[in-house]
């Protein structure tokens, strides 16, 4: 492995000589074409809160899953008290004292709080039956020690996200946890709830537990954490005490991913096709305004959970807005369903691959024509020749590698399947195309291809909204970049002024001046 980034590991002077309770030693993990982790080492010390930061897709979640026993490393190992162990699964990891609180609480909504806390290790009575009273008491004791008030007899369904998160933490602490892993625990919490959570995390640390705190909110890293590790593209970039780091340092470590080059041909920019003004959906995003012109690619950048997909879902009629206006081609629109949006000329290639809806067992042609069947064949009966010639046009244009439009989509590679998905939406003849993470999970060759396609589509006069977590992609493809931070537009950056630092600063809610002064 060659080291591509600036690597400088700063070690604290008073490093303890005893082995850390938990460490990762040279862990690598690959999923298909993606190297999720490459030779990452990390140690977690008792009585320390260790921040793990990085862009979307930097490998943070993979580390959490390796520690939780969900993924096993391809090489390298999880090291417990100096001994490499193979974690067989989540239960095994838990039994070894590694407690993981996932980003989304994974509770049983119809059971009580106490039952959830003691799932799998409920206190037993004499006959081996569950001792309910003891379970309630023990749960109350944990909540008391965290100085929070939750009725342990309440049913979980209906409790707030924050309370559910606390139940997860209580669950983690109900076994003798030596390591507590928190995966972006503040993503859905209010400021007050975050404070309460921080108090609990500090208290847990002071009891000698090693805490790994995964976050991309830099202010939290500095407020809460003792040391920080930055990952980029699955590689370890730096580990240092937070006292020796500044926010601009962190941002610079986070950005600078390896760039693949792709063509962006200049397009003639025309009239405004899509105009969004003051769009608000309670709990998702607020007061979003931007416009997209014909021939223009507007990038929507932001961290996971910033509200990008939520905006797209409203524009496509999958969700409703609570306030604001959308104007399409000069006419105000308000879609009640995706089919209304499709008719009006908006197409949305979803991020969620489950929604892409390729029908296995259907040929390329049959999949491509699926959204327009009634329009294409108003007289009920389909005609293969028409279908295939239409599909052949897209196979050509998008360079879908196949044995012909008859080939079943199941037989295609991931990248080519993604092209069929794009072809399917193009068949609806849209004027505005929203692409949500169009290159996630496809290999580098297919990625370049998708970029070429997007570029050509813009050149043909489409207005394109490109949602992507891949910073170099957004920078290279977009004419303008709208950055969202926690449901609001935090910056609008024209192509010429855009840099990774600037986008990342806006995405993490930092003030842009820091970036320019740091350069």
């Amino acid at each position: 492995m060659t080291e591509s980034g600036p690597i400088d590991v700063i070690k604290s002077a008073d490093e303890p000589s005893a082995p850390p309770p938990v460490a990762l030693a040279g862990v690598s993990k690959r999923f298909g074409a993606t190297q999720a982790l490459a030779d990452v080492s990390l140690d977690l010390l008792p009585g320390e809160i260790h921040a793990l930061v990085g862009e979307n897709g930097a490998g943070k979640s993979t580390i959490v899953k390796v520690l939780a026993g969900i993924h096993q490393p391809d090489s390298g190992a999880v090291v417990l008290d100096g001994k490499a162990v193979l974690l067989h699964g989540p239960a095994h990891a838990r039994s070894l004292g590694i407690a993981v609180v996932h980003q989304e609480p994974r509770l049983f909504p119809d059971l009580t709080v106490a039952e959830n806390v003691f799932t799998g290790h409920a206190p037993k009575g004499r006959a081996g039956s569950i001792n309910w009273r003891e379970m309630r008491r023990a749960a109350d004791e944990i909540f008391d020690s965290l100085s929070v008030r939750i009725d342990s007899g309440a049913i979980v369904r209906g409790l707030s996200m924050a309370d559910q998160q606390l139940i997860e933490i209580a669950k983690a602490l109900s076994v003798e946890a030596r390591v507590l892993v928190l995966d972006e625990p503040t993503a859905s919490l209010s400021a007050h709830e975050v404070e309460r959570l921080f108090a609990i995390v500090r208290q847990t640390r002071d009891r000698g537990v090693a805490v790994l705190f995964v976050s991309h909110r830099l202010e939290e890293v500095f407020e809460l954490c003792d040391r920080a590790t930055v990952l980029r593209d699955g590689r370890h970039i730096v580990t240092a005490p937070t006292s020796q780091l500044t926010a601009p340092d962190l941002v610079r470590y986070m950005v600078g991913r390896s760039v693949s080059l792709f063509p962006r041909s200049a397009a003639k920019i025309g009239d405004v096709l899509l105009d969004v003004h003051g769009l608000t959906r309670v709990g998702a995003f607020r007061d979003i305004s931007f416009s997209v012109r014909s021939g223009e690619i507007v990038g929507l950048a932001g961290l996971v959970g910033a509200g990008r997909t939520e905006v797209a879902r409203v524009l496509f009629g999958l969700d409703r807005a609570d306030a604001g206006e959308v104007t399409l081609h000069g006419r105000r629109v308000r879609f009640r369903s995706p089919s209304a949006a499709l008719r009006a000329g908006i197409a949305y290639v979803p991020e969620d691959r489950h929604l892409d809806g390729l029908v296995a067992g259907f040929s390329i042609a049959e999949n491509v024509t699926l959204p327009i069947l009634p329009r294409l064949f108003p007289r009920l009966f389909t005609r293969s020749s028409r279908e295939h010639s239409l599909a052949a046009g897209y196979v050509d244009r998008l360079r879908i590698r196949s044995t012909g439009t008859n080939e079943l989509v199941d037989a295609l590679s991931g990248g080519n399947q993604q092209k069929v998905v794009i072809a399917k939406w193009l068949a609806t003849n849209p004027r505005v195309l929203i692409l949500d993470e169009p290159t996630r999970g496809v290999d580098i060759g297919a990625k370049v291809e998708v970029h070429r396609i997007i570029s050509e589509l813009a050149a043909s006069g489409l207005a394109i909204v490109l949602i992507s977590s891949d910073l170099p992609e957004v920078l290279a493809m977009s004419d303008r970049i709208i950055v969202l931070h926690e449901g609001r537009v935090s910056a609008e950056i024209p192509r010429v002024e855009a840099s990774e630092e600037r986008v990342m600063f806006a995405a993490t809610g930092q003030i842009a001046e820091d970036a320019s002064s740091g350069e």
Partner: protein
Amino acid sequence: MASNVAVGANARRRVGALIGGFARSRELTLAVVLVALATLVAARAPNFLASTNVVSVTALAAIIAIAAVGEALVIITKNIDLSVESTIGLVAFVVAEVLKQHNLPIPAAWAIGIGLGLALGMANGVVIAIFRVPSIVATLGTLSIYRGLTYWVANGHEINSNDLPAGYTDAASRSILGFRIGDFQFPGVPIFVVLAVFVVIVAALALRYTVPGRQLYAVGSNAEAAATIGIRSQSTVFLAFSLCGMLAGVAGVLWGMEFGQLYASSGTGQSLAIIAAVVVGGVSISGGSGTVIGAAIGALFLGLINNALTVLLLPQEWLQMIYGAVILFAVSTDALIQLRSQRAKARSRIR
């Protein structure tokens, strides 16, 4: 010249794809197993190939196949219809009762049977597509309701073939295309089989080459995604149940022709056989894939097993167990295949 070469290559590729598709297809595998099993049984029990036996095997298989085509439409949309056997029973009894009471021509009996089946299927469709009751619960209810109606209509009586017009009960034994060359006599093809083949072909073509046919697969494959491209899954599901009821009506009329003797309980237990036929025929219970041709071959396969037990003098009690085992085997292989393809997909896509 160049274009000729291209066309030739394209045609070759098409043929190649077709052969490849067949080799992988459940339909072909099942057909091969079917022939092998038939050969084996015929070798052990010569009377298996006697024309009376062949006619009786194929007649029942044809009835089940027609109902299985309807059931396949429903299962392709990721639903299930447990009530088919009650629809068959009710239609068979009502048609016979009407023929017994009134002097009606046979085509009128057909119209009544098909119309009643369609109405019962639409009733299922309303409950499932409009009131959004899960189909397994809704049709469990109508399985019982339709059977109850039959008991109510029968009112403690049964119908004998003597009560029915000869033109009705004779139909089952009629065949076409019979011929004789010297000593060799070909008994012809039973008209039930002709009818079943006709239904299967029409349904297969409709599924592949009509807009609603396509949408049936899309809804079953991923209803949520189908909705994002403007397919109304509720009407698609309603259509599937209506057609399933209609085909069960056809099967019901044939049932009356075949057996003549009808009880309020006629057809009980057949839903299991019909669903087994569909599943064995390669229609995925999780929706979105499979063909009606497969379902029909599945029906013939189960009919063959049924008959094999008789001619080989094996205990008939095994039948239920064999049907059950066949369902489990078919569904679990499907699940395995699905798991494998999902894993492959995850490997190629997920970060």
